[in-house]
């Protein structure tokens, strides 16, 4: 029972969790529930990460926010979790088994604890720099976008609850932590230098995250599927899988989540507007999780999504800007085709968000070893690194959450080993 008592009474040094997406939130909550104090660092204004940018989740077609929201709220209100939003880890040094960290915290000019969401500041802002976080962010508060803010101070004058203080400056927080969990998640890679995908050449050629945002129920189009170029309803949409992924020029690995993501997007497109034809250009349709294969069957059969095995060789806007030409070979019928699409969604170009960093590149930041593609390499590190989520390996929500709990367990076990 010694260990039991030990855990109950432990209030030692904290654990630092870097990244406030689903994985980071879960790891923090697990540790905090086990009695460990946690510092959670998130670069965005609210917790939630990439999942907060998703509209629906496969395979249950849940609204992403609904799943996330509960845990975000628990995290914000947990007495053992200190959440640092708009923050970065500036320095992280390992000294005698512990880490000393410097966190650079950018000011929330609007105090989340005081903002009553009345919106008077939004009306007064001449630069249009004030907006809510994501649609269902917790706590509900407005955020000032620093890049467009002119610091005129109008907002502070009209704020009835005195939540706005433009005088705030960034601050540095020094921490000593026992362990670090990396849950830095993914970002979209720039596809522009793979010319055949035509990324950036036409407003209707989007990446899947852009498409998700563009068509989200809570987004600007309220769930309507329209073209970005002229707001008309597209006749057909091409979902291009493995764009940049499974491709040695850019991302050699399979991003694991994109097949299901495309099936989900195509399915929801069909659900919202039956007249739109959806084509998915795939290499292998990888559906390995619970109900994933069934989901693919259902989306395929029930909603007449057309699946084409083949990777387009060229995607190019048509002259005059009306439509996009996609040239491809259907490898199951062995026919070469050139077809006009109204919208093209590029799927697969996601990679770990820390890919541009390299261990040792920045001496002040003890980034754990990574492989060439930017995934953390936990096995080779003897001092044991704890990582979870997409930064560890391509993972969807369920897997990320499992990895997060496992990483938290790793921290717990290591802590005990030392005593």
């Amino acid at each position: 029972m010694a260990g039991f008592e030990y855990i109950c009474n432990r209030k030692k040094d904290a654990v630092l969790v870097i990244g406030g997406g689903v994985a980071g939130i879960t790891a923090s909550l697990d540790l905090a529930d086990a009695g460990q104090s946690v510092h959670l660092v998130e670069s965005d204004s609210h917790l939630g990460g990439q999942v907060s940018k998703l509209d629906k989740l496969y395979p249950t077609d849940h609204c992403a926010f609904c799943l996330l929201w509960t845990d975000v709220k628990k995290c914000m209100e947990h007495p053992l979790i200190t959440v640092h939003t708009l923050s970065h880890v500036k320095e992280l040094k390992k000294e005698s088994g512990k880490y000393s960290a410097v966190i650079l915290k950018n000011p929330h000019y609007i105090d989340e604890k005081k903002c009553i969401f009345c919106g008077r500041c939004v009306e007064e802002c001449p630069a249009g720099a004030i907006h809510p976080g994501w649609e269902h962010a917790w706590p509900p508060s407005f955020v000032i976008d620093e890049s467009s803010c002119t610091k005129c101070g109008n907002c502070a004058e009209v704020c009835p609850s005195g939540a706005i203080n433009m005088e705030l400056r960034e601050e540095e927080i020094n921490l000593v932590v026992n362990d670090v969990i990396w849950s830095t998640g993914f970002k979209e890679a720039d596809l522009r230098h793979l010319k055949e995908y035509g990324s950036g050449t036409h407003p209707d050629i989007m990446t899947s995250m852009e498409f998700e945002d563009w068509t989200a129920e809570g987004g600007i189009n309220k769930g309507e599927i329209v073209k970005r170029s002229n707001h008309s309803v597209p006749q057909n949409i091409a979902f291009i899988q493995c764009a940049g992924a499974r491709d040695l020029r850019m991302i050699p690995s399979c991003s694991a989540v994109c097949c299901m993501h495309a099936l989900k997007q195509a399915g929801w497109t069909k659900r919202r507007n039956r007249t739109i034809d959806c084509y998915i250009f795939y290499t292998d349709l990888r559906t390995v999780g619970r109900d994933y294969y069934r989901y693919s069957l259902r989306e395929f059969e029930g909603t007449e999504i057309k699946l084409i095995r083949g990777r387009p060789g060229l995607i190019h806007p048509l002259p005059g800007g009306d439509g996009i030409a996609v040239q491809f070979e259907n490898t199951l019928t062995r026919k070469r085709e050139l077809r006009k699409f109204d919208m093209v969604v590029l799927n697969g170009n996601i990679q770990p968000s820390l890919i541009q960093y390299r261990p040792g590149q920045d001496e002040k930041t003890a980034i754990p070893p990574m492989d060439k593609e930017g995934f953390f390499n936990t096995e080779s590190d003897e001092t044991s690194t704890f990582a979870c989520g997409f930064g560890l390996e391509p993972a969807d929500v369920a897997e990320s959450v499992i990895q997060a709990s496992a990483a938290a367990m790793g921290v717990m076990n290591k802590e005990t080993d030392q005593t």
Partner: protein
Amino acid sequence: MVVAVWSGKLIMLEKTKNIAKQILEEKKANGVLGLMKNQRDIVQPHVFKRLPELDALVLEPKWLLAKLSMSILRSSPEGYRLAVLCRGCDERALIELTKRNQIEKENLLTIGIACSQEQAAICLCDRPYPAKVDAGEIASGVDPFQDERVREFLIGNDKKRMEKWANVLKRCIKCYGCRNSCPICVCEPCKLEDDVWVQRGDVPAEMATFHLIRAFHLSDTCVACGACQEACPVNIPLLYLQLSMRKTLKEKYGYEAGLDPEKKSPILSDFLKEPETGREYPEWINSLREKDGH
């Protein structure tokens, strides 16, 4: 023809008497609940305990014995077994009562008698026979929706029907006869006596609540015996309220009250866990059209 009907009825009665006799002789039950015609020609329910009594056993008129058997069994000592002469609706009511733990299955025996075609027509019964028929010829069921009287109340636009029903229900004198005669209504206290749901002291009873709450509470248990409307002193066709709900349960969920003692009512289970997977949401549900969930 008349003779044939008569002799048929006599054969049925003799057969029933023989079964009852056998039960009493073999001590399968402590008593047989049935109808007795006494010396003054008055028919009343009676628990037959001795063989000679059985001479007075009669089968007519239709008299629902389910609730009575429940009270007898409840007030009897442990181990008391009762055999009940029951028609189709009566048997279904007994099954519903067993499902609801009001009667213990082991203490009950049924002697099933089939109703005549005329009786079926009077009751608008779609199943005028018990699952276990011991005596009588099985008559064919009547589709209540084909009956003119019923159609009058179920067809027509909303406004007309609303007025039709409102006019009928206005006659209500709130005697609670419908509830008291119902073989399934066993709750004590009853929601109809609670002024949160039904205003007390109102006559006619508050219509949308009193009648509809009563009807809805029986949605999945009503065995269409018609006892409520037989008991109604002002002739409100209360059975007609149940018909469309019974139809929905039968057609969409394959459920009929009182048929299968093991089958739970579908309204207790999750929509997604229906045996037929891939079930579509009813159209009227404004929903994300999740076809089958997970």
